[in-house]
């Protein structure tokens, strides 16, 4: 992995150890990277995490099954709806609850809106790290529209608590679907706008092409998931491989990269914007009538057993492993497989041999949220 470490420096001077973070403008939260530099070239990097560890997994052992949904909001706090979705589906799988079709469709719409919102945030911050600050505000402008939609649906703008075990707390408000369609139309125009600013920009190309290349084997070996894995050309998307919610009834493509560099990962996420819009449109077209809540017992108390269920969150494969002892009204043990944490494994091999300026680009390209890494 560290094959690039021997990049020859021009002047032989002392190695400089630089502490990037936990307070640094572009470590996306409280990530700390200890860089050993030769000139500006990274010789070694040590990724230090744990600055916002809140013990969510342990807390879950002392909360009701329903209360845990609130806690999942606070892991990947820029994609709370997908966290809710993953947890609720896992419990439903554990209790073998049938979710009404309408609820599954609305969940899909919410999850895809959330994917667009999360990618907007990623695009904005990633571009900002590389110095294109206008894209940041453009992307946040569109993210704001999604937050408005969520606010109308569930009343919250960041921590939604938008799903329940067995379905949804509420049906969609009247006219909400029209607004979502309008948003899709807006997004159709805005994605080309981002592309115009970045995709063929020479500086952007030079800053991202062949930066942080990772081969398919290495990507699998490091346990990467989501866009970083697909960027290396590995076909893996939980929505296709193990469909959940309504994904088996909807059509969409999984974009794949060829080189596995930062530019490919950028293109993939931009394509995912389009695919998400496509999914939302299909789901709205085929939105069935009916209840949004399945038959759920008053007291949620799964029988003893354990299960693992994964969904494709905006950042990659988000899995929940839950053990129930069948006696208490709370899980015996809960463990989350957070995509950000697994993707962060790839940071060290990615940055070694690159320049300081690339480090921020590479932190951006793997799209981490520290709330999810530390939990």
């Amino acid at each position, binding site marked *: 992995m560290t094959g690039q470490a021997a990049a*020859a*420096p021009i002047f032989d*001077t002392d190695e400089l150890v630089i502490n990037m973070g936990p307070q640094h403008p572009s470590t996306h939260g409280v990530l700390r990277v200890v860089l050993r530099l030769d000139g500006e070239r990274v010789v070694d990097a040590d990724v230090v995490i744990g600055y916002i560890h809140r013990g969510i997994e342990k807390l879950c052992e002392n909360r009701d099954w329903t209360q845990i949904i609130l806690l999942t909001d606070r892991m990947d706090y820029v994609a709370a709806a997908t966290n809710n979705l993953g947890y609720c589906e896992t419990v439903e799988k554990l209790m073998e609850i049938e979710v009404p079709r309408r609820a599954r469709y609305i969940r899909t719409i919410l999850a895809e809106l959330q994917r667009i919102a999360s990618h907007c945030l990623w695009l904005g911050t990633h571009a900002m790290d590389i110095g294109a600050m206008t894209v940041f505000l453009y992307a946040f402008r569109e993210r704001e529209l999604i937050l408005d939609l969520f606010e109308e649906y569930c009343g919250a703008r960041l921590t939604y608590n938008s799903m329940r075990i067995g379905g949804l707390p509420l049906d969609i408000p009247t006219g909400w679907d029209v607004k979502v369609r309008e948003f899709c139309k807006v997004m159709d125009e805005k994605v080309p706008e981002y592309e115009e600013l970045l995709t063929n920009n020479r500086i952007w190309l030079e800053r991202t092409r062949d930066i942080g290349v990772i081969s398919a084997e290495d990507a699998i070996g490091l346990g990467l998931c989501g866009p970083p894995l697909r960027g290396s050309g590995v076909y893996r998307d939980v929505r296709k491989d193990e469909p959940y919610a309504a994904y088996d009834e909807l059509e969409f493509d999984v974009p794949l990269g060829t080189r596995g560099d930062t530019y490919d990962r950028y293109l993939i996420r931009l394509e995912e914007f389009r695919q998400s819009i496509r999914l939302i449109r299909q789901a709205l077209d085929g939105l069935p009538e009916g209840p949004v809540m399945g038959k759920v017992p008053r007291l949620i108390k799964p029988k003893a057993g354990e299960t693992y269920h994964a969904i494709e969150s905006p950042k990659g494969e988000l899995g929940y492993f839950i053990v129930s002892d069948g006696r208490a009204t709370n899980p015996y043990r809960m463990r989350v497989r957070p995509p950000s944490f697994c993707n962060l494994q790839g940071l060290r091999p990615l940055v070694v041999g690159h320049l300081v300026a690339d480090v921020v680009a590479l932190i951006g390209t793997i799209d981490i949220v520290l709330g999810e890494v530390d939990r």
Partner: protein
Amino acid sequence: MAEAIAFYTLAVLILGLGVAVVTTPKTVHSVLFLVLNFLCVAILYVVLRAEFLAVIQVLVYAGGIVVLYLFVVMLVNLKRAPEAHEDPRRLARLGLGLSGAVLLELAGIVVYSYGRAAPSSAPAAPVEGIVGNTEELGWLLYTDYLIPFEVASVLLLVAMVGAIVLARRES
């Protein structure tokens, strides 16, 4: 009168900064004093009606060479200053003595030659149609001193190649 004021002010500054350059313990401070010294010398050139040289002095010396020094001072991040540890072979006193001798010798020459008529050299015939210090200088450089000028450029080229070869690490 104005020239006298300018000369004495600048002379004091130049000498003071020169002393500061060679006595300051911190290398970075030395470099800074050197820049200021060069700037004062540039102003002295203006007083001497050599505007072009003044500008070149600032551009090449202050803006180029000294930045190079600063660059090296930063790269060569010293853990211990050379002066800090006493060397048995250090001959500072002898050095001071020798410097004093040089000063005395120079002073002797100045005193000896003071008041004597300067050797009359034929003033360069002003070239017709050329006005201003810069143009005259350029004219001289590209006519009478063309070969030295070219040699100087070759010297710079050699120095450039040499510096790159020296500073590069064999890998």
